[in-house]
């Protein structure tokens, strides 16, 4: 009895999600379900298919003729399906070449990030034995950018979001890619405000100057595979300052 009612409730939630009727907490719950529960995702897809023929009523309209070239240029730099890891590796190679030139930029960005996060005690000048690492993550395709600093003495990561869209219906996941290695998740990051993340030793040991940091778009709750599955919105090398 109550199972049937639950099923009906979930199917209606799927319909509401498919139509985009929900807001706030309900919308969040539906997105979470759609990302995590294949049965629910299937219900959403069934509703989308049921309602799609309504769209036949919408008159076609010609977009600006220049849009075609704009889109083809955008996909030339966008990661295609399934090749995000390849793109990360390519990005890594490119960044290694630039790493030397980046050091000066990273140092100036490091000054920027210290200022807004002043609730905690002032950061001591990095000692020789415990360097500060900084990565300026830029987009391969668009304006996304953020700066991440790693304080190896305190074993924490400071994340300063720059121009990054809010995660709507998905999460942003941070990865460290050791030189020549596969991406390792550092966890979900919230790019709405400057934040600190403690780094457990298992993750901290990968945070070295030869590694690259990258942020990918993943289903709510993070990549289901342990490797990046969605588009990489920004990446950049860690450099010592």
């Amino acid at each position, binding site marked *: 009895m109550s199972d049937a009612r639950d099923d009906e409730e979930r199917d209606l939630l799927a319909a509401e999600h498919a139509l985009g*009727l929900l*807001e706030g907490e309900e919308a969040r719950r539906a997105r979470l379900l759609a990302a995590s529960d294949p049965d629910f995702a299937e219900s959403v897809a069934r509703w989308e298919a049921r309602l799609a023929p309504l*769209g*036949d009523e*919408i008159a076609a309209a010609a977009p600006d003729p220049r849009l075609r070239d704009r*889109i083809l240029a955008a996909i030339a730099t966008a990661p295609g399906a399934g090749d995000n890891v390849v793109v990360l590796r390519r990005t890594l190679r490119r960044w290694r070449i630039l790493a030397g030139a980046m050091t000066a930029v990273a140092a100036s960005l490091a000054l920027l990030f210290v200022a807004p996060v002043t609730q905690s005690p002032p950061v001591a000048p990095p000692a020789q034995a415990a360097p500060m690492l900084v990565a300026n993550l830029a987009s391969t395709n668009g304006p996304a950018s953020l700066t991440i600093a790693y304080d190896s003495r305190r074993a924490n990561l400071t994340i300063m979001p720059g121009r990054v869209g809010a995660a709507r219906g998905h999460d942003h996941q941070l990865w460290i890619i050791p030189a020549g290695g596969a991406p390792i998740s550092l966890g979900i990051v919230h790019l709405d405000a400057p934040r600190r993340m403690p780094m457990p030793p298992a993750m901290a040991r990968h945070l070295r100057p030869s590694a690259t940091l990258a942020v990918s778009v993943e289903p709510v709750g993070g990549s289901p595979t342990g490797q990046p599955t969605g588009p990489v919105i920004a990446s950049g090398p860690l450099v010592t300052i």
Partner: protein
Amino acid sequence: MNSHQINDMPERDRLVAALERIGQGSSIALGELYDRTAAKLFGICLRILGDRGEAEDALQEVYVSIWRRADSFDAARASPITWLATIARNRAVDRLRSSGRPRATAPIEAASDVADSADNALTLLEASEDRARLMGCVEELEARQARAIRAAFFEGNTYAELASRADVPLPTMKSWVRRGLIRLRECLER
């Protein structure tokens, strides 16, 4: 595949073939898909966003999204144009939500009984049975249920916006829409 074969294919098969090649990374195939579908998908974005610039930005996101997700398209489970149109509608609705702009504040009655003309090839492609059935089922709904569901679909309205446009309390609107959706599903599954 030579051009004769392509020209002989039904439209649906051409779209499926293009999506398959896009999934393998062919940007030429994306260009071809764009030529066949941009007007339809732009129509959807424009209808929901009501602004050409916004709709063009949304359309770009739509094709980038198609580029990334083409390998997840399964021709055995979905019609290509339904899949594409759904991506377009969802991207446009997301964009509408994130813009925070108030939209479609006119009374519901004024906006959503106007059926647009639809005379492009893609429409005819699937204008078939599915559409006739859905239209038949929508006609069986109470007028206020049908109006609300159509406004949600075409204008991307939320429950709160629908309630305000119809000047009824939110729970009333939810109940209209939910009862309408249940009836629609029952009718389509008969």
